[in-house]
């Protein structure tokens, strides 16, 4: 995710997915010898929207043309293009922050109930889910588990939730270019 900020400290694009090169995971060959869940996972990964080339070109256009770039929004356009925030999302943010605070000050077990509630209050927020999941499936000090198939604590996984929310093609906040 990224935002664009002009020379005066003003947002000219709100938060949106911001890849500038396709994920190498798209190139993974799905073979029959992979476990079924991995085949399903990579199938969804290959459906993720890819706007890397267009997004990179938009950045270059903004750098060259500034406020005259067609990708630089006026203030009212930025506000209107930012994500809706109903009360449930405010509640989810509070629950997630409380969980983070408890994780750091008390321990993970204290955080989990609040993170579960945050996931339920805003099921489309992948940051809340993946932050919680990665602490389940990644031992301290080791590289992050990107697959996130551990589900004992939360009862769901990245793959299950992606499929439930419309598949890989519906994942993320697509930049409106």
């Amino acid at each position, binding site marked *: 995710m990224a935002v664009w*900020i002009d020379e005066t400290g003003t947002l000219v694009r709100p938060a949106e997915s911001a890849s500038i090169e396709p994920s190498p995971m798209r190139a993974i060959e799905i073979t029959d010898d992979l476990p079924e869940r991995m085949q399903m996972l990579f199938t969804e990964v290959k459906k993720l929207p890819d706007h890397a080339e267009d997004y990179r070109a938009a*950045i270059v256009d903004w750098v060259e043309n*500034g406020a005259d770039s067609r990708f630089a929004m006026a203030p009212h356009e930025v506000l209107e293009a930012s994500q809706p925030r109903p009360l449930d999302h*405010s*509640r989810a943010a*509070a629950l997630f922050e*409380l969980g983070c605070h408890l994780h750091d000050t008390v321990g993970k077990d*204290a955080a989990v109930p609040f993170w579960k509630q945050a996931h339920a209050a805003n099921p489309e927020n992948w940051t809340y889910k993946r932050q919680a999941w990665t602490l389940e499936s990644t031992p301290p000090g080791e590289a992050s588990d990107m697959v996130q198939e551990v589900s004992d604590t939360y009862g769901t996984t990245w793959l299950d939730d992606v499929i439930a929310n419309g598949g890989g093609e519906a994942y993320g906040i697509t930049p409106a270019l």
Partner: protein
Amino acid sequence: MILESLAVDPATFADATGWESKPEGLCKGDQCVPAPEAVTADGLLDVTVVADRLGMAIVEDPDHGLVALGPESGGRALTTTTVPDLPFTDADGNPFSLSSLHGRKVLLVAWASW
């Protein structure tokens, strides 16, 4: 915002949320919301009143004596396009202020390893 009670110092609240307590109400950017009963007799903000006026969710954790206050709701995630002077730490551990980049275009990317 994490609190230990349902009353908060206005300056602390402004630092955490961007909403300042002014004579005309609670204000952020060009937006002001009337809240005449938000300030208590001892000069603190009544969090229940503020939350009601701004659509902020309150989550209480009595086991740990904590209160979490969510961001304002009812509209869009952004209420202003003015970027706050966010404090960061650079790769060498030194304080880094976003405002130090004024005069240049900034692409601010948030990323996680998962």
